[in-house]
C-alpha cells in the first residue's frame, strides 16, 4: 500500500484530474495516429535518431513552444487567483505549486529551450558549417533536455509539484518543511536537463571556434554567432555550479546530509548563494542570444550595417564577466552589511553601462536607415522602450539601501518580467518569425502576426506596470491572497486583464502557424527578407549538408557584400561531402536517464541501479562503436541542388 501511495497527488483538484485525463487521451491519440498513418518508422528515422542540427533545433523549438503554453496556463491561473482580494479559485498550496512550476518551466524549459533551438538552427548556417562539431552529443543534449522537461511536468499528475518557488530556497525546500516528492522532481529534472545544457555549451564553443567558413575571422562573425559564443562560455562556467548545488540538495533531501538544514551545522543561505552564482549568469545566458537576434533583425530591416560592431562585442564580453560578480544583489537583505552590499551594488549598476551601449548602438543602427516594419522588426522595436523601463528599474533595485524596500515585492516581479519578456520572449518571437522561412520554407502571415504582436506588447505593459505600484504599496510577491483593505485589488485586476491580452496574443501566434501552414505561398525564395548573413545564402528548405559549396567570407555581412559589393561567396567546385550518421543511442540513453530520474525521485533504488547500468552501457557502446559517418557523392549533391531549385521555381 505504502509503495503506491507516494505516487498519489497530495492535494488533488478537478484541474489535476482533467490534466490526467488529457495526458492519457493525448498519449492514446498520438499512438493510434502514428500507427494508423504508419509513421513510426518515419518518426524513428527522421527525428528520434537524427543528428542534424536543423532538425534538433526544430525539436527544441516545438518543446519550447509546448512549455511556453504550460507556463502560460500557470501564469493565467496565478493572475486570475490574485485578480480579486480573498479570491478562492486556488488554495495556498496550489498557488504555491503553480508559481513554482511557472518559474521553472519558463526559465529552464521554455527560455532555455528556445534560445538553444535558435542557436542550433542558425549558428552552423551563419558560420557556413555543415553541422555542429559533435552532432551526436547535440542529440544527447536535446534528449536530456526533453526528458528533463517531461519528467518535471510529470510531477503535476504523479506525486505532486514542487511548491517552494522556482528558486527552491532551502531550508524551506528541505525534506522537513517540504516532505512531498515535488522538490525531488525539481532536483532531478533540472539535473538531467542541466547536463544536456552543459553539453550544448561545450559543443557550441567548439563549433564556433573550429568550424567557421574560410575568411570568417572572429571579428567577422555575425552578431548572433558572437552572442552564441559568449553565451555558451557562460554556460560552461555557470552550469557546473547548478549541478553541484542540485546534487547537494538531492543528498540533503534523500540521504540526510545537512548542507542546507536548520540544524546540525547546515547553512540557511548556502543554497541561495550557490543558486544565484549560477542564477545570475543564467539571466545573461538567456538575454545575450536575444541581443544577438535583435542585432540581426534591426540591421536587416533598417537596411543598414550594425553600428559599432566592435563595441557590441566588447560590451557582451564585459557583461559576461560582470554577470559572475553580482549574485549577492539577489539577497542584499541577508544582513552582510554595508560594505559587501556597496560592492555588489556598484558591480550591479555597472552592468547598465555595457547594456546601455548596446541600446544606443541599436538606435544608431536605425539612424539613417530605411526602416521596414515587419513582424520581427516590430518585436525588436518594442523591445527597446519596454526593456529600457525594465532595465532602469533594475538599476533602481541595484541600489541596495532602497532594495530593502523593493526586495520580495511585486516591484521586483514587475522588473524581471519587463526584462525577460521583451528581452527574451520578444526576441524568440522575432527570431521565430525571422527564421521561420528558413526552417519551413514559407513565411508566417504578417497581418495575423501584427495582431499577435499588438496583443503581446500591450498586454505585457498592462500586466506588469501595475505591479510597480502595488509593490511600492507593500504587496509581497508569492502571496496567494490579500485582504480588501490593502487596496491591492485594482492593480491586480489590471494585471489580470493584461495577462488575458498576452494569452490572446499567444493564441493568435498558434493560429498564425496553422493558417500559414495551410495557406502561405511556398514560393518565397532563399532570401525573403533581403538579409545580410550566410544562413540566407543557402536554399529553402536547407539541404541536409547546408551548403553544397563552402562559402568564402570577407566581412560580418558576407551575403550583403555578395549582393551589393561583388563579393563571390561560392568559389570552389562541388566536392564529396562527409556527414555524420544517425544514431538511436542518444534517445535510448536519455530514456534510461528518464527512468533513472523517476526512480530516484521515488527512492526506488533497484530501478535506479538498473537504469544507471543502461546509461553506462550506452556510453560503452559509443566508445567501442566504429562509425565514420557517410559521404554524399557529387551526383547526389547535384540532384538535390536541382530539386531545390526546381521547387523554388514552381
Amino acid at each position: 500500500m505504502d509503495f503506491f501511495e507516494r505516487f498519489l497527488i497530495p492535494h488533488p483538484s478537478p484541474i489535476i484530474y482533467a490534466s490526467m485525463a488529457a495526458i492519457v487521451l493525448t498519449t492514446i491519440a498520438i499512438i493510434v495516429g502514428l500507427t494508423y498513418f504508419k509513421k513510426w518508422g518515419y518518426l524513428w528515422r527522421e527525428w528520434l535518431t537524427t543528428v542534424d542540427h536543423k532538425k534538433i533545433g526544430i525539436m527544441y523549438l516545438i518543446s519550447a513552444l509546448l512549455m511556453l503554453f504550460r507556463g502560460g496556463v500557470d501564469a493565467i491561473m496565478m493572475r486570475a487567483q490574485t485578480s480579486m482580494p480573498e479570491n478562492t479559485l486556488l488554495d495556498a498550496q496550489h498557488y504555491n505549486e503553480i508559481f513554482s512550476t511557472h518559474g521553472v518551466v519558463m526559465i529552464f524549459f521554455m527560455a532555455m529551450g528556445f534560445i538553444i533551438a535558435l542557436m542550433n538552427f542558425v549558428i552552423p548556417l551563419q558560420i557556413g558549417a555543415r553541422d555542429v562539431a559533435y552532432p551526436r552529443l547535440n542529440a544527447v543534449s536535446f534528449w536530456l533536455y526533453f526528458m528533463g522537461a517531461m519528467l518535471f511536468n510529470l510531477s503535476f499528475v504523479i506525486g505532486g509539484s514542487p511548491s517552494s518557488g522556482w528558486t527552491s530556497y532551502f531550508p524551506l525546500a528541505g525534506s522537513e518543511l517540504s516532505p512531498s516528492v515535488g522538490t525531488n522532481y525539481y532536483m532531478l529534472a533540472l539535473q538531467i536537463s542541466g547536463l544536456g545544457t552543459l553539453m550544448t555549451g561545450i559543443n557550441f564553443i567548439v563549433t564556433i571556434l573550429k568550424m567557421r567558413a574560410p575568411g570568417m575571422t572572429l571579428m567577422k562573425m555575425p552578431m548572433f554567432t558572437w552572442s552564441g559564443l559568449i553565451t555558451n562560455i557562460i554556460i560552461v562556467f555557470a552550469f557546473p555550479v547548478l549541478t553541484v548545488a542540485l546534487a547537494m540538495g538531492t543528498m540533503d533531501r534523500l540521504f540526510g546530509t545537512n548542507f542546507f538544514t536548520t540544524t546540525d551545522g547546515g547553512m540557511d543561505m548556502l543554497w541561495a548563494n550557490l543558486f544565484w552564482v549560477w542564477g545570475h549568469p543564467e539571466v545573461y545566458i538567456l538575454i545575450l542570444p536575444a541581443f544577438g537576434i535583435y542585432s540581426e533583425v534591426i540591421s536587416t530591416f533598417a537596411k543598414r550595417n550594425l553600428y559599432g560592431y566592435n563595441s557590441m562585442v566588447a560590451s557582451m564580453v564585459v557583461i559576461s564577466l560582470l554577470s559572475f560578480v553580482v549574485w549577492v544583489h539577489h539577497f542584499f537583505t541577508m544582513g552582510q552589511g554595508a560594505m559587501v552590499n556597496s560592492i555588489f551594488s556598484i558591480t550591479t549598476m555597472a552592468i547598465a553601462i555595457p547594456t546601455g551601449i548596446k541600446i544606443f548602438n541599436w538606435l544608431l543602427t536605425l539612424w539613417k536607415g530605411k526602416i521596414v516594419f515587419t513582424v520581427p522588426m516590430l518585436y525588436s522595436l518594442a523591445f527597446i522602450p519596454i526593456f529600457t523601463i525594465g532595465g532602469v528599474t533594475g538599476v533602481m533595485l541595484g541600489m541596495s539601501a532602497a532594495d530593502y524596500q523593493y526586495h520580495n515585492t511585486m516591484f521586483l516581479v514587475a522588473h524581471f518580467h519587463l526584462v525577460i519578456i521583451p528581452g527574451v520572449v520578444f526576441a524568440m518571437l522575432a527570431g521565430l518569425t525571422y527564421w521561420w522561412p528558413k526552417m519551413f520554407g514559407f513565411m508566417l502571415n504578417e497581418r495575423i502576426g501584427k495582431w499577435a504582436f499588438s496583443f503581446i506588447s500591450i498586454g505585457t505593459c498592462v500586466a506588469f506596470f501595475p505591479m510597480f505600484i502595488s509593490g511600492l504599496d507593500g504587496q509581497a510577491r508569492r502571496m496567494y491572497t490579500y485582504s480588501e483593505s490593502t487596496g491591492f485589488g485594482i492593480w491586480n485586476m489590471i494585471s489580470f486583464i493584461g495577462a488575458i491580452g498576452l494569452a490572446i496574443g499567444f493564441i493568435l501566434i498558434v493560429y498564425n502557424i496553422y493558417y500559414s501552414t495551410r495557406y502561405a505561398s511556398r514560393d518565397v525564395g532563399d532570401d525573403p527578407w533581403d538579409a545580410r548573413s550566410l544562413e540566407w545564402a543557402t536554399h529553402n528548405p536547407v539541404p541536409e549538408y547546408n551548403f553544397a559549396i563552402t562559402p568564402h567570407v570577407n566581412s560580418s555581412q558576407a551575403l550583403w557584400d555578395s549582393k551589393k559589393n561583388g563579393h563571390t561567396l561560392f568559389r570552389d567546385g562541388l566536392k564529396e561531402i562527409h556527414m555524420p550518421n544517425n544514431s538511436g543511442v542518444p534517445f535510448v540513453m536519455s530514456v534510461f536517464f528518464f527512468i533513472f530520474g523517476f526512480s530516484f525521485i521515488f527512492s526506488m533504488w533497484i530501478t535506479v541501479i538498473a537504469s544507471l547500468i543502461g546509461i553506462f552501457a550506452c556510453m560503452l557502446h559509443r566508445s567501442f562503436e566504429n562509425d565514420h559517418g557517410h559521404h554524399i557523392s557529387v551526383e547526389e549533391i547535384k540532384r538535390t541542388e536541382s530539386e531545390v531549385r526546381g521547387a523554388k521555381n514552381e
Partner: protein
Amino acid sequence: MKMKWVMLASLFTLLAVLTGCEPLLVLDPEGPQAQTQANVIWISIAIMSVIVIVVFAMLAYILYKYRASKQSDSYEPPYIKGNVIVESLIVGIPVLIVIVLSVISVQSNYKVEATPEGYENDEPLVVYASSSDWKWHFSYPEQDIETVNYLYVPTDRPLEFRLYSYGPITSFWIPQLGGQKYAMSDMITTLHLAADNAGEFMGRNANFSGEGFAENTFSVEAMPQQEFNDWVKEVKQTADPLTEDKFNELLEPGHLGQLTFTGTHLEFNPPPQGHHEGHGAGSEGEHNDESSSEHDAHGEHESDSGHADETEENTEHQH
C-alpha cells in the same frame, strides 16, 4: 508608433499615481530609515525618468524620420562603421550616471545599516524578533515581556531588531519604518529602525515561507514613551508568564492571533549565537558588548538549544 504613446502614457500614469494623493506605503515614511530609502527611490526615479525619456524620444524621432514609407525607392542607407566621439559619449554618459548612483547608493547603505540619523545618542530599545511558521514572536529583554504577532514601540527612540527564525528564511518588514532584512535559523541579523511619529503600521514576513505565508503579518503601533511604559506596566500586571511548554506549543506550524506574555523565551530558548552584523555598520562594538553580557547571563541554558554548535563562531565574534 502607437506603442510609444501607449508606453509614454503608462509612464506618466505611473508617475502621476506615485505622486498622487494616496501615498504608497514605501513612499510614505514614518521613520528616518524609511525616509532615507524613500529619498533614494525618488532620486533614482528622477534620474531614470530622464534616461527613459531620452531613449524614447530618440527612438520615436528615428522611427519617424527614417521609416521606409517616407523615403524614395532609390535611397540606399549608408555604411557607417562607428565614430570615436559618438561611441565615447555613449560609454561616458552611462559611466557618469553610474558613478553618481554609486555614490548615493554607498552613502545610503551605511545610513540604513547604522543607528538612525538623529537618534545616535539615545539608548536603543532592543527587540528580538523571531519567526516560526507562520507567526512573529517579539521578545523585549529590557522590559522582560513577549508578544506574538504585534509590536508596540516607543517613538523617538532608536529600535534595534535582532532577527532569527525557527524555520525557513523569513524577512522582517515594516515598510513605513524601513526596509526588510532576513531572519535565519543559524544566525542573528540586526535591523536598525526608529519611528518618528505615533501611528499604526503594517508589518509582515516578505520572504516566501510556505503554505501560511500570505497571512504571516503583524501589526506595529508606535506611541510616545510614556504610553509605552504604561503598556509595559499593564502587561506585567495582566499577562500570563511564558513557559517553555507554552512556547513550544506556539512554535507549532499554524496561525495565531495576538498574544501577550510576561518573561521572554530568550531565557530557555536562546537565539542562535552566530551574529552577522555587517562590517562597518555603526556602533558595532557597543552592541556586541551588550549582547555578549546577555549571552553570559543566559549561558547556563545554552546546552538546551539546538544551536549550541554555533558557539565557536560566536567566540570569534565576541572576543
